[in-house]
């Protein structure tokens, strides 16, 4: 179980890998010592103590982003410029909401996330971080807390294992589980789940072979 408290953050998180494919956060058991209620408490252990329980791994958190410089390193990976490379010398515009409003960079970035401005989530004092509504700066890997401050019902269900995809074991006494981070399914800048084409169209049994209804079976 992971317990993160208001004010003092005690995520026991280990970052593995740093490319844009996503950071794996291994959530280990942390004992509770605070007098305040935990705001992150992943259920699903079935009342097991930490020692009896296999870990829950959360995948899909994005690391601190970077802007492609156009160069490639020896392995062929794009060289990214840190946000702070530019933003350390620029003053944040608190009303900017969309990449199209900017003169340089981020033009391709369109946002569809309520009425949020860039600095609603990004930390204008340190662009390598995000910022909570309280003013507290947090790491990109902790973005779950940022989402949670507005999306309470979803976060409540997520905490209780009733929101978000997962794989592995229902019984954590037997084996571990892998859970999706918010960002595994939702783009932070346009979080609405996109339409998809359905797979695996049903077929009807037919004496001369099976055909899908789309192919003209009546």
């Amino acid at each position, binding site marked *: 179980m992971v317990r993160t408290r208001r004010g003092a953050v005690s995520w026991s998180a280990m970052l593995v890998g740093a490319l844009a494919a996503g950071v794996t956060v291994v959530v280990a058991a942390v004992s509770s010592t605070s007098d305040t209620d935990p705001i992150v408490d992943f*259920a*699903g*252990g*079935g*009342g097991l103590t930490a020692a009896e329980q296999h870990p829950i791994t959360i995948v899909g958190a994005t690391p601190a982003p970077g802007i492609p410089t156009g160069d490639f390193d020896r392995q062929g990976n794009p060289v990214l410029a840190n946000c702070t490379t530019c933003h350390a010398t620029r003053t944040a515009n608190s009303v900017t909401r969309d990449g199209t409003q900017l003169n340089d960079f981020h033009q391709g970035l369109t946002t569809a996330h309520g009425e949020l401005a860039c600095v609603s989530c990004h930390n204008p004092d340190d662009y390598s971080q995000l910022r909570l509504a309280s003013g507290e700066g947090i790491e990109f890997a902790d973005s779950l807390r940022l989402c949670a401050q507005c999306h309470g*019902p979803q976060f409540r*269900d997520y905490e*209780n*294992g*009733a*929101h*978000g*995809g*997962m*794989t*592995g*074991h*229902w*019984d954590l*006494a*037997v*084996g571990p*589980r892998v859970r*999706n981070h918010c960002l595994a*399914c939702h783009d932070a800048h346009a979080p609405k*789940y996109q*339409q*998809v*084409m*359905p*797979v*695996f*169209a*049903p*077929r009807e*049994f037919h004496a001369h*072979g*099976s055909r*899908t*209804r*789309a192919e003209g079976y009546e």
Partner: protein
Amino acid sequence: MSAPKKMSLPVLGEVDRRTAFKAAGATLGAAAFAKAMAPVVEWASHETSASEFLQKHFKELRPDELATVMSRLEDEARDEYGADVTIADYRPQKGVKFGYALNLSICIGCRKCAEACHKENNHDRVSGNSYIRVLEMDKGSLDLESGNAAYDHPVPQPDKFYMPVQCQQCERPPCVNVCPVEATWKEDDGVVVVDYNWCIGCRYCEAACPYHARRFNWTKPEVPAQEVNPNQGYLSNRIRPQGVVEKCTYCLHRTRTGRLPACLEACPTGARVFGNLLDPNSEISYVLRTKRVYVLKEELGTRPQFFYFFDT
């Protein structure tokens, strides 16, 4: 009066007309009988071994007898499908009763669950069988019978919602009651199972199920060797013979070893919640405690252990 006309047959030599017709009739009769019996003879000699014919009901098999049966089924899978499979008898766990819930606010109708079921459970590739049928429903209606399973356009559509339907693992399963040979029954963890070797294929259960959750193997399932899921349960996803009924078992070969069902793992949106109803800290208990869940066709009194809910 002239002498009776003599006819000649190559084998019988000189015979009279009556004898000739008798012989011809007997020959044709024997040939027709052989032709008529050919499917039975073929079935008995190829499809059914003596040990399979004499196999006892699942519940009467001693452990060593069951082991022999499963070993024979593994050999058959190798002979007929060219696949090395492991068939085991997964038993219900003490203190575990499975429940499943599905969030209809989140399901987008992508049918990935149905596809995962198809692969996990070694379904016939030709008919594209799956234990899950995803219904596209008009918002504002919960009429199961008006749902459309054959939609073929981007999902989700704004005026629709999507309801996957599979076996509801009823507490009072009508399908079990109607089986004339007790080839299907409800186990202690709530899963309704079928002994495919005991089923006579009468399809009464299929007719009795109000959720259209049972499937019949009209043909011998076709599964390419490299696509056969080798992790198999005797009462779940082993390749079924032709002419028997099959159904969702909550992937008991996975879930009785603590794993999540294949349809849940495949769900890209996390609409599915699975767990132990007897554990108050489980995810499924949380859903039942805090969401306004409903069951399909509650008025029938089948008491499904599969629950639907909308985000609240």
